[in-house]
């Protein structure tokens, strides 16, 4: 082995060691969350800190589901996220297709409007949005939780970019053969759009699932809360039951982590695509 090769091997080993150390410390909080969630309520209050639970117990999970209606929170989260995701995908496909493929007067101006709306931070509009939802009598309802998020300019933008990258010829041939626009979209375009749909769907689901400020202000009774709201309210406890809180955190993060692990590429693409809220 010559000296150059040796040097490369050593430097690569150092890179691996540095990266591995960093990666482990990135994952450490998740390990701590999981291990704490499996401990007895009082086991965490010992001065001699231990990593492993002395005996694995699911009592933290049991308390989360019985002392707090976490199962209900979870169902609300699922329902709200599924509604929002479905609606966002449908509205984004329609708008993205219109921007990418249809000629109509004022297209650029309308598209610029969508882009500008993307720049407006949700925090700057939350007060009037709340007042509006209250005026409509939709506080503390699924409609109130979902309505503002049924469409996003980001989704329209993402789908437009994707449609623009597709060749037009298939669609044109179909139209010459007498297909309607709707048929073209459903039969020809959509099957080719699956990766983009997956990307958008995952992204929408993640943001909806993790969203917190809006469900926090819009819900007034426990039975309408989402997981994130229930979790945030736990942080105000004076005598924190850490195993129970960690169990609740595991339940609130697991769906997104599993979705992420099963479709990492789409996830990373969707977030790297543009700098939206995270």
């Amino acid at each position, binding site marked *: 082995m010559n000296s150059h090769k040796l040097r490369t091997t050593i430097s690569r080993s150092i890179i691996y060691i540095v990266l591995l150390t960093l990666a482990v410390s990135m994952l450490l909080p998740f390990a701590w969350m999981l291990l704490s969630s499996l401990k007895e309520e009082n086991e965490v209050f010992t001065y001699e800190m231990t990593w492993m639970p002395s005996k694995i117990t699911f009592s933290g999970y049991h308390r989360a589901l019985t002392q707090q209606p976490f199962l209900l929170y979870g169902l609300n989260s699922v329902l709200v996220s599924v509604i929002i995701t479905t609606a966002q995908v449908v509205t984004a496909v329609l708008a993205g297709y219109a921007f990418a493929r249809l000629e109509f007067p004022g297209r650029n101006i309308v598209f610029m409007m969508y882009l500008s709306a993307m720049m407006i931070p949700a925090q700057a509009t939350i007060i009037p949005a709340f007042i509006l939802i209250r005026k409509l009598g939709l506080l503390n309802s699924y409609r109130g939780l979902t309505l503002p998020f049924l469409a996003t300019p980001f989704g329209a933008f993402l789908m437009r970019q994707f449609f623009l990258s597709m060749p037009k010829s298939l669609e044109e041939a179909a139209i010459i053969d007498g297909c309607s626009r709707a048929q073209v979209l459903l039969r020809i375009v959509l099957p080719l759009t699956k990766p983009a749909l997956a990307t958008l769907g995952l992204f929408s689901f993640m943001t909806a699932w993790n969203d917190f400020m809006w469900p926090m202000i819009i819900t007034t009774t426990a039975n309408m809360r989402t997981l994130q709201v229930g979790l945030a309210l736990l942080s105000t406890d004076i005598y924190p039951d850490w195993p129970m809180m960690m169990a609740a955190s595991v339940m*609130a993060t697991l769906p997104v982590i599993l979705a992420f692990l099963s479709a990492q590429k789409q996830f990373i693409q969707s977030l790297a695509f543009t700098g939206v809220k995270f």
Partner: protein
Amino acid sequence: MVRKWKRLGHEQTKTALLALLPSFVVFSVFTIYPIFHSLYLSFFNVSLVATTKRYVGFGNYTTLLNNPTFRRAITNTLHYTMGVVPVGIFLALVIAVLLNNRLRFLGFFRSAFFTPVITSMVAVSLVWTWMLEPNYGLINSLLSKIGITGPGWLTDPKWAMTSVIILSIWKNLGYNMVIFLAGLQDIPAEVYESAQIDGATSIQSFFRITIPMIKPTLGFATIMSIMGSMKVFGQIYVMTGGGPANSTMVVVYYLYQQAFEFYRTGYASAVAWILFAVILVFTIIQMRFFRTDY
């Protein structure tokens, strides 16, 4: 023939209008209209729970700028931004450069760094609150093993903001890393190879090749991180509630408190507009200098 095309054009317009309608309605009602309504509200003394309102001109804005808590919120937000952005960007860049070495297990590393990005802010804030717990938490337990008595991270005004900053760097690291990794992969390998032949060390290559070539990406990520930092809220809500002694009071938390705890709608709308204006400036900078591919 011309008539047929015209007819088709009309049809396309009709189809387009129909296709755009749902998203257009949603975001006009919940984004465009609210941003102007909040501007309108910011000129009134109005409460979330009362029906009367009184025109006060720029009164809310002058009160705000003279309010010590709001001023504190601004300096704290700047402090937070200065703490999160440079360190976060630098770390992410270093990790991306290390990962860009045609390594094995790239997938594993990328996922490890990215997992905090996709998990909920509320949940990870809760986990970090527990890790930073002064007596039984992970951090202080580990510190005591090497003979250091750790501070009350979230209860000591001197340490609370630092704790929030550490959590936020950890949470967002993977996001910037992915952006940098994409930018690095656009640099042709030949550039590095020829530099190596000319005898450049890897440190020299980093400063003379990587940094100049990744500048646009670096700028984009920096602006995005600054804008994200100005909107910091979730971790403050869960970890500190703006305390202790306002040491972590930031702009959006102030807005939230004024609007939804004290019901001062007009006043909070002025906060919203100040935030919006500042973010707008950064957006314009970003669009002008870093992103031209729309």
